[in-house]
């Protein structure tokens, strides 16, 4: 099932499906790209950033960015 990264729940895993081209440049350097496995680690309250694991390392992503990343969530 496809879902926005910003709407993923704690400990959910999936594969990155689409990244809005406008933020691709900004985010590839962080190791986030299409086809990568991703796991939701923490969601900070009050529209705070999400923390995800990609390639065994944690990265925090602003909610605004996370809104523009689509993940195929594994059931």
């Amino acid at each position, binding site marked *: 099932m496809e879902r926005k990264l910003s709407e993923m729940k704690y400990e959910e895993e999936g594969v990155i499906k689409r990244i809005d081209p406008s933020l691709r*440049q*900004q985010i*590839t*350097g*962080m*190791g986030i790209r299409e086809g990568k496995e991703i796991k939701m680690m923490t969601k900070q309250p009050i529209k705070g950033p999400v923390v995800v694991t990609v*390639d*065994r*390392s944690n990265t925090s992503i602003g909610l605004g960015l996370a809104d523009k990343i689509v993940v195929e969530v594994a059931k």
Partner: protein
Amino acid sequence: MGQANVGKSVFFNRLAGARVAESNYPGTTVDYAKGRMLFEGRYVELIDVPGTFSLQPKDRAEEVAVKMLEEEKEALVICVIDASKVERGLYLTLEIIERGYPVIVALNMWDVAKGGNIKIEAKKLEQILGVPVVATVAIRGEGFKELVSRMGEAKPVDIEKVIENVKGSKAGTHR
């Protein structure tokens, strides 16, 4: 150059014998520091820059790093990569290679990668990139002799060549 928290300042201090602030937090270095090191019998200038994810700066510290690189057209760039997060680090390295700088890659925190059971074929990476790749553990000074002795091998590489090499080596260095 390298991403945040990969050990650039530890490198700087080791190589220049200087003491800029180091800490185990990303973003410790927000401005650049200059020092000198002995290289092939003469003193050369060494610059420590803030960490940056890419050459498209997203904050002030990243701007300093990118500006520094752009001002120092003759620079030889030591790309410090966290060996336990190779892919991330290679992105920046490739960008720097693309801009035509002679590069030497240091796979730092080699011990951490090993402890995490991450195997990196440094030799193969070296063949693909066409620049020297050295495994280091900066806080203990491991790999520095090799690093300094091989800095002279750093040379600009045509990015198209790298792309060819990647296509040529079907078995990648990571999954």
